[in-house]
Structures are given as C-alpha cells and as structure tokens.
C-alpha cells in the first residue's frame, strides 16, 4: 500500500471515528431528553389519576431506551481488544437485567388487560415488551460483534 493510500485510509478512519462519536453524543442527549419527558409525564399522575400518562411515559422511555442502547452499540465499535470484550460483557449483562424487568412488568400488565378488557393496559404491556425486546436485540448484536 502506498503512503498516499495509507494517509487517505487514516483520514477516513478519523472522519468515521469523529462522525460516530458525534452520533453517540447526539443520541445520548436525545435519550436524556426523552427520559426527562417520561418523568414529567409520570409526575402528572399525582394530579390526574389517568393511566394514559403511564402509556405516554412508557412510550417516551421506549424511545430513550432505543437511543441509549444504539448509542452504546456504536460507542463499543470504537473500542478494540480485551477492553471491548470486557465492556461488551458488562453492557449485555445490564441490558439483560433491564429486559427481564420490562418483561416481568409486561406480564403483570397484560394479565390486568386480559382480565379487565382494559385496552390501556394492553398498550402498556406492548410497550414494555417492546422495551425488553429492543434491549435483547441490541445485546445480541453487541455479542455477535464482539465475536468477530
């Protein structure tokens, strides 16, 4: 490989690194905004006891979860070697923990939805299942990427 090719390759790698770190920062900021929006929606429950606010909060939390998980996945791509394997393991472990929490809550909420024919609770159950599934999918992707 010639010197100019090596230099060009280095430049494109730097550019890619900077683009991915910008994306990670942007996704992180967006996820923080969505989590705060979810907290704001939940706070309305003390004034109006309407389950729709939980539905809105879970929707915002889902968007925050997707952005947070994807930003972590992108960030891990920039790390190599033993450090990457270690970080990937801890990320997958934590994502699995949250997905179990989401699934457990979804089971309870779905039960209420079926017993009472309550559509709001059906929506909540789907959102919670979505949250768990997204995290499982991203974890799987991180696991597969760390194998290569």
């Amino acid at each position: 490989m010639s010197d100019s090719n090596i230099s060009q390759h280095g430049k494109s790698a730097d550019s890619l690194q900077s683009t991915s770190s910008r994306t990670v920062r942007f996704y992180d900021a967006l996820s923080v905004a969505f989590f705060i929006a979810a907290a704001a929606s939940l706070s309305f429950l003390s004034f109006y006891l309407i389950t729709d606010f939980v539905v809105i909060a879970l929707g915002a939390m889902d968007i925050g979860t997707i952005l947070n998980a994807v930003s972590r996945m992108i960030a891990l791509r920039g790390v190599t070697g033993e450090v990457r394997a270690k970080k990937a393991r801890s990320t997958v472990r934590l994502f699995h923990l949250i997905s179990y929490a989401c699934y457990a809550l979804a089971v309870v909420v779905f039960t209420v939805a079926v017993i009472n024919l309550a559509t709001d609770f059906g929506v909540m159950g789907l959102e919670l299942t979505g949250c768990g599934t997204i995290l499982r999918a991203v974890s799987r992707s991180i696991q597969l990427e760390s194998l290569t």
Partner: protein
Amino acid sequence: MELWKLNTVFKLFLLSIAAFFLLSAFLHYTLVLHYLPVILVIGVALYISTITNPALRKRPSRIYILSTTIISTALVASIVIVGYSTLSTTNSCHQAGTVPLDWAGNVIIDSERHPYLDTGTTYQFNFNLLSGPGYRLRVTQDPFSTPVLHLATLSGLTNLDQWNFAPASCGTYWIELLNLGFGTQQSSYHVTVTSIAS
C-alpha cells in the same frame, strides 16, 4: 459513571415509579401519589446533576458554586410549591354539582369520560342509545378498572339503562362506551349523571 449506565439506572427508577403507581392504584391507595412529584424531582435532580457535574467542574469554582446554589434553590422551591399545592388538596372533596355529566355524541370504537362525583350523594346514571347498533358500557373508579361498578349492553332491543350509585369516596369515575358496530356503523348516545339525593 458512564452516561449509558446512568440512563439505564434512571430508566429503572422510572419503571419502578410506574410499577408503584399501578400497585397503589390496584390497592386503591392513591393518597401516596401526592408525594410522587417530590420523589420524581429528587430523582431528576440527581440525574441531571450527575450528568452536568463533570462539565461544571471544568469551570472556575465560583461559577460551580453559583450554579449549584441556583439549581438547588430552584429544586427546593419546586418541591415546596408542588408539595404545598398537592398536600393542601388532601382530604378535601369539592362540590360536584347537580349534573356532573351531560354527554352526547357518536361512538365509533370507544369513548370515555371521567366525571367528578362527591361522596354522600346518590347519583342516577342514564344511558340512552339514540341510534346505531348499540354499545357496551362500563363504569369503574379512576384510575384503575377494578372492580367494575356497572356493566351493561345497550342494543336495538334495550336502548335505555338506568343505574343509581352512591360513591363511597369522592373523586373521578370512569365511564367508557364501546361500540358494538364495525366501521361506519357508529352508535349515537346520550349519557347523563345527575344527583338525586344527598
């Protein structure tokens, strides 16, 4: 702490708040929810300060002290305001009026209203089917659909349903109508709730 980890921990916190709400609603012990804004404000304050602290630490110490003071003062003020406004409404049943609900319209899929009803008063619920295939109605106490207080189906055969109810506690009640028809087969209704004795 890395931001992705902090986000995940905060998400767990929010999930536990949602679970706490559902549990308290299920047990019909919703008084504790008045403290929800305080818990949320503390959680959000910790979350934001953990994110912003590293950035603030890079600044001269005076700015750091000033910003911390401003943030803390704003949070304490908001806690005091929310706490005062929510706790001052505890144990107070305001007047519901003689006609808490006079509601007419067309239901395509489902429709709901949440009228406020006072304790110590008997209310008469009148459900009318004006036209269309009919609807299934359900009355429960907010915020949770258990137990169902009244359930009926209005169709071409029975187009009127009357039900009397004396609430054990003041608050909003949930009236839901579910259309029996499909697509363009909407049902026209007129629902009233009036106090008949106190």
